[in-house]
């Protein structure tokens, strides 16, 4: 099961609502909401497949500016 660490950048006004939206999604844990509209989250899914679908979907959330990948582990767990 792959795990990734991502950074979601938002317009600062919407960072809290985006963080709530992220936390609602299965497979996403919000680990920190930082100044300048950044959210650190960990993404888990059964396959890289599902992981990417989750992450691509985040780009569509209102207020999300970009989603970037900091870490990706896909060793067999």
């Amino acid at each position, binding site marked *: 099961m792959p795990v990734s660490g991502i950074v979601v950048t938002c317009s600062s006004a919407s960072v809290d609502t985006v963080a709530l939206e992220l936390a609602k999604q299965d497979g996403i844990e919000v*680990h920190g909401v930082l100044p300048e509209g950044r959210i650190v989250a960990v993404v888990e899914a059964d396959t890289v497949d599902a992981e990417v679908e989750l992450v691509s979907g985040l780009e569509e959330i209102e207020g999300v500016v970009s989603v*970037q990948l*900091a*870490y990706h*582990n896909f060793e067999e767990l």
Partner: protein
Amino acid sequence: MGLTRRDFIKASAAAAAFAAVGAPMLRPEGAEAAEAGITWGKAPCRYCGVGCSVLVGVKDGKIVTTKGDPAGPVNKGLNCIKGYFLSKALYGKDRLTKPLIRKGNKMVEATWDEALDLIASKYRQAVSQHGPDSVAMYGSGQWTVQEGYVASKLMKGGIGTNNLEPNARLCMASAVVGFMNTFGSDEPMGCYDDLDLGDTYILWGANMAEAHPVLFSRLIDNKLKHPKVRLIDIATRKTRTTKMADEYIPMRPHGDLAALNGIIHVILRDKLYDESFIREHISFKRGKENAPYGLKDKEAFNETPADVKGLSFDEYKQLMKLFTPQWAESVSGIPAGKIEELARIYSDKSRKVNSLWTMGVNQHSRGVWVNNLIYNLHLLTGKICKPGENPLSLTGQPSACGTAREVGTFAHRLPADMVVMNEAHRKKTAGIWGIDPGKISPKVGLHTVELFRAIERDEIKCIWIQCTNPFQSLPNLSRVRKAAQARKAFIVVSDIYPTRTTELADVILPSASWVEKEGVYGNTERRTQQWFKMIDPPGEAKEDTWQLIQFARRMGLGHLFPYSEKGMHREIWEEYRKFTIGTGKDLAPYQAYTKVRGLRWPIKPDGSETRWRYTDLDDQNVKKGEGIKFYKAPGNKANVWFRPYEPPAESPDKAYPFWFSTGRLLEHWHTGTMTGRVPELKRAVPGATIELHPEDAKRLGIKNRDLVRITSRRGSVVLPAEINGRGTPEKGSVFAAFFDENRLINELCIDAFDPLSKEPDFKKCAVKVKKA
């Protein structure tokens, strides 16, 4: 404690993300434990031209994890979504692992000896019967520097033909000619630091949010921190970039040529230019006009020094009087008032203005001219070679700059800005290669479009394609594929997966990719990045350099490649580096690159890099106190070119009423051979779609996901409609990305090209659109 390995890995994932946003103190417990047993190595990303640095984690001979490299100055610890596919792209189930030789309609497994002997016998036979210009090689901006260098030495110095081309002809050639005829040297004066330091960014037809996401994030970071920052998106299609821009200015296809002339007209009319900068640093030129579009075979067009006329500033101003804002509006669709406003923004002394562009400008039947006109704006206003204000031509492949452009794997080029037509350049090259200068042909080889047309004419008997997929990516694709299917030419393809190109091959060679070999890439901002081999390639796959040298030995050219097995990559580099010393494009010893996340050339005598060229602030080729000096240009003066408007090769008409443009999406890279292979990526964006403007769709009775037939004079494809999706073209235009191997979009495209750069125009042709 109850913490599992999975908890450790999650801690590690969070820690990496915290570190990337500058909060490394928030390091969750257990982060170190996840990394036990993993060996880390650095490499530039395999995908686009941005050149992000990646840390690759290997365990038991397999890549198990990747990280954005916190020490990488380009991406500072973060990758784009393509980072998910970096290592997995190597582990697709259908990797090519054995050489294959065509026997009738079947590809049959063979040994390397059998395959290489066959290739050498075919090349030898062609050369002896039809001369060296009957053979060719078609390479890539994804070749490592070493691969490109060996290919160039083999073809130009060994076999004696200049029929060597990179796929970069399809993406960067117009940028190259623009740099050469303006500044006398290829590649930018500025660098990515300008994305952090400027306050005004004008995008000419570039969807950076999807094509250069990490750079776009840097731009957005700058914007979020500094309210003064303005981002203006001038484009023919609304994109994710548009969403983040302060202003979107819709423009008709080909309208850039008119709009830029209109802006320059206003700058001249209202004296908004920098007079002393012009006096010191600029020559005015007028070139050859009424140029053709390359639609006829063997159409010869060049702009020789005899065709170029020097102009005085007054003569130039007089000529530019033609291009009023009203005229620019009538051609480009950009309102005259907006043209006036853009002229004021470009010349505003309180603003640090940057222009950014990529395929919209380069894949253009007057692409060189548009590059010239953008430089004109920066030269006339003196906003160039200064930290935070520069024009920046963005690239699409990881080593379009490092390999195709710097090594010079084009049909006319030699390393370090030299060309085959120049006797002194041939002599210098022959000296370094240890060959008779007579061996290098002074005749320019066939450029890409002509090369594949020459296969149709049976003039090319053998072609070896490495690391690229022309039978999906070339324009007017049916014509090109038919020529290959005629099986007159012997076609060799080296790649890592089966592609629409390998299916037309006589021999398929399995290649090593990315960290399965050692290499060097050079990115958009002149940054040269090295990596070591980290894992073995699968099966019998071999790196392209090895394939070329083994072939060379069979051609009796082994003496040109006297490298040791162990030190080959370093030895090739050190030989290549000799070309650059003292040219203003100086590269560092190999050792230097092994330790750092790249260095931007020219490398100074003390081994440090150069961020801004042609300025005494940073470039050691300019003496302190000299200010700005275009020392690679004749008389140290950059050229401002008069480049009028000329229409596109094909425009919509009654029979074909829509514009068609192709391009890229975030999740898919080029022809999709490394991204499309991965099932998860296909799921996110299952197949190509055709984007339409909602009003056009309504008029034609087309609803979202309806199948639509798109037909040009050259081909026809059926695609599902996408309305109000990620991108929305302007009315009268449709757009489709070209990644989908099941729908050969480029069959629609016209094979018209820029007369100076020979780069095809993938962004403009006429199509009709009908519900299928």
